C-alpha cells in the first residue's frame, strides 16, 4: 500500500472519527438530561428521543464523507486507484472541514438540545421551538460538509 493511500485513509479517519465523537458527545448530553425527564414523565419518550437524536446527524455526515473517500480511492468495490502523495494529502485536507465542523457542532448541538428538554418538560406544545434552536447549529456541520464535498468532487482529480 502506497503512502498516498495512507494519507487518504487518515482523511477517512478524521471525518468518520470526528463526526462520531461530536455526535457521541452531543447525544450523550441530551440523553442524560432526557433520562431525568423520563423518570417523571415516561410518556414523553418519543419527544425525548427526537431531541436526543438531533445531534446524531453529524456522525452521519462524517460517515458519508468516509464512504465517499473509500469509493473515490476505489477501496470499496471497483478497482483501487493509484494517485500521488500530494493528492492523498489533498484528500486528507478535504476531510478536515467536515470532521472538525461535525465534532464541535455535534457537541454544541447536544448542549442546545439538552436545554430544550426544559421546554419539553414545561411546555411540550412548544417542542418545535426547542428543535429549531438546536437545528440552528446543524447549519455549521452542513457548511463543513458542503465545502468538503466540493473539494473531493470538484477540487481533487484522481
Amino acid at each position: 500500500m502506497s503512502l498516498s493511500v495512507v494519507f487518504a485513509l487518515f482523511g477517512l479517519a478524521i471525518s468518520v472519527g470526528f463526526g462520531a465523537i461530536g455526535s457521541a458527545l452531543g447525544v450523550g448530553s441530551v440523553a442524560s438530561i432526557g433520562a431525568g425527564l423520563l423518570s417523571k414523565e415516561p410518556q414523553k419518550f418519543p419527544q425525548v428521543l427526537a431531541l436526543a437524536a438531533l445531534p446524531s446527524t453529524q456522525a452521519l455526515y462524517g460517515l458519508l464523507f468516509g464512504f465517499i473517500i473509500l469509493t473515490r480511492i476505489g477501496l470499496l468495490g471497483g478497482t483501487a486507484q493509484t494517485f500521488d502523495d500530494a493528492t492523498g494529502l489533498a484528500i486528507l485536507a478535504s476531510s478536515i472541514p467536515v470532521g472538525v465542523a461535525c465534532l464541535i457542532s455535534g457537541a454544541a448541538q447536544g448542549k442546545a438540545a439538552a436545554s430544550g428538554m426544559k421546554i419539553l418538560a414545561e411546555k411540550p406544545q412548544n417542542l418545535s421551538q426547542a428543535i429549531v434552536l438546536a437545528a440552528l447549529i446543524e447549519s455549521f456541520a452542513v457548511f463543513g460538509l458542503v465545502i468538503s464535498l466540493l473539494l473531493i468532487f470538484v477540487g481533487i482529480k484522481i
Partner: protein
Amino acid sequence: MSVVLANTYLITTPINGVDDLSQKLILSGLQFEILDPLELGEEWSQIHTLENKVEVNTKELEIVDRVLTAYQPKGLLESFVDHRALGSANEVLQARDNKSDLKTIVHKLDQYLDLENDENGEGNPTKSALEYIKSTLSKYNINPEGLQPKDYKLISAYHASLELDIKLSQVREKIFSTKANSNTYFAFFSVDKLVAKAFEKLLLKEKVNFEKVDWNKEIVVWRNKGGLSAFQGVAQSLGTIDTKEVDPTVSISVFFTLFFAFCLGDAIYGLILAIFCGYFLYFKKLKKNYQNIFRLFFYSGLVTVLIGALQNSWAGDLLINSPARPFVEVFQIVDLLNPDSPAILNVFLKENGGISPIVFMLGLSAFIGLINIFCGYILHMVTSLKSSDFGKFKMELNWLLFILAILGTIASLSFAEALLTPFAAVVVITGLGLFVLNEGKNIVGKILGGLGNLYNLIGFFADILSYTRLIAVGLTSGIVASVINLLAKLVFESIDIPVLNLVLALLVLFGGHVFNLVVALFGAYINPLRLHYVEFMPKFFEGRGRALKAVDSDFSRLNLNYHSK
C-alpha cells in the same frame, strides 16, 4: 380569506342555570371559548368569580384510561389509529347518571387485568380471585376476557363524563358576578363566525339573555381547508396570524414540500412515505394529533417522488443496477454522482465549461433560496400595505431593489458589462434610500439605522448560503443508500453458500434502507422547518394574533363530532 374575527357575547344567567348551560354548550359540539374577564383590565378585578364546585376525579380518569387502553388493539401501527368509540351527548349524560355502576365495573376490570398480568408473570396465580371478579362482572353482562363493543362504548362514555367535569370546572372559573348584582352571573363567550348562528339559536332555546360585545382584543379564527391545514400548522407554531397579516399557508405549502423533496431526494423513499401516510389518511381513522404531520409527509412524499426521479435516485442506485434501468432513466434530468451520465443536464454542463453537476445543483439550491427569501420580502410588502404602514412598504421595496441591483451588478460583471453602469447606479440610489427611508428621527439616527440596514446585507447572503443544505442533505441520503446497496452486493458475492447469501444480502438491504429512511426522514423534516422558521418566515410573519382557544368538545375516548356532522 381564511382569517376571520370571532364573535364575542356577554351572557347573563341566574346561578342555577350556569352548569346546565355550560354542559349543553360543551356537548353541543360548537367550539366556543370562555374568556377570562381579568384580561379586560384593572377595573374588572372587583368582580367575584363563581366558587368552583365541580369535583374533578383525575385518579378515576387514569384508571378508566388504563382499562380502555388494555382493550385496544396493540402495535406500532395501531398507535396511529383513532380507537375512540362513536357516541352521542345523551350517552355521556346517561353514563354520568350511572356513575356508581360504571365505577364498579371499571374497577373490577382493572383488578382483573392486574391479576391476569400477574398470572402471566411469575407471581402466584390467584385463580379463585379471577373467578370471583368474573362472576361479579357477569351480573353486568360483561366478560372481562373480551370486551363487547357496546361495553367499550359505555366505558368510553363514562370516561367522557369524567372529562366533562374537567371542562365544566374550567368554564366555571371564568363565570363571574358583580357586587351590585350578586344573583346574576355573567360570562364572555367567543365563537367562530361559522357557528355563531347555531350558537345564538341554542341560547335562545335555553332562554338565556345575550348580547354581542366588543372584546378588548381581536380574537382570530385561522382556518385553511383540507390539505392546506397541515401547512398552516407549520406557521402556527410561530404564532397566530392577525387580520392585518397575509396568510402564508399557500407559499409554505409550495416551499415546504419542495425543500422536503430536495432533502429526502429519493423516489423510492418518497413513494414509501406517501403510501404509508396515504394509507392512514384515506383508509384508516387517523388520530387527530397525527393528522397534520401525516398530511405534511404525504404531500411532501409525492413531490419527493418527482424530485427523486429527476435526480435518478431510486433507493440510491438500486433500480439503476437492475433490469428496470431503462424505465427509470426516462425521467432523469441530472445525475449528481456520475458526471459522465447521459442525463440532459450533465451533457449540457459538460459541453458548456464542464461545471460539475453538484456545483450546479448547489447553485440551484441557493437560487431557490433567493426566490424563497424574495417571496418573504413581497409578503412583507403586502402585509405593510394591508396595515397601511407605507413607511415599512417603501423601506422593503427599496431593500428589494437594492438586493436585485447588487445581484445585477455581480451578474453583469461576468456576463454583460454594458449593464454594469445602470445597475451600479440603482445600487447607489437604493443604498442611499437605506439611510433616508429608515425610522431614525435625526441625522445620527438615520445614519445608524442605515448602517444597520447595510449590515443586514451580510445576513441576506448568509441566508442564501443556508439553502445549499437542500442538496447537501439530499446527497447524504442518496449516497448512504447507494453504500447500502453496495454492502448488500458485497455480502451476496463474498458468501459462497447459495441460499444463505441471498437471505443475508436481502437482510442487509432491507435493514439498511429502513435505517437510512428513518434518518433521512428526520433530516428532511428538520431542515425545511428550520429554513422556514429562521430564514423565510421572520421576513414577514409576526404572529401577533390572539387565537380562539376553544373549549374542546372532543373527548379523548369518545367521538361526538361524528354525530354533529
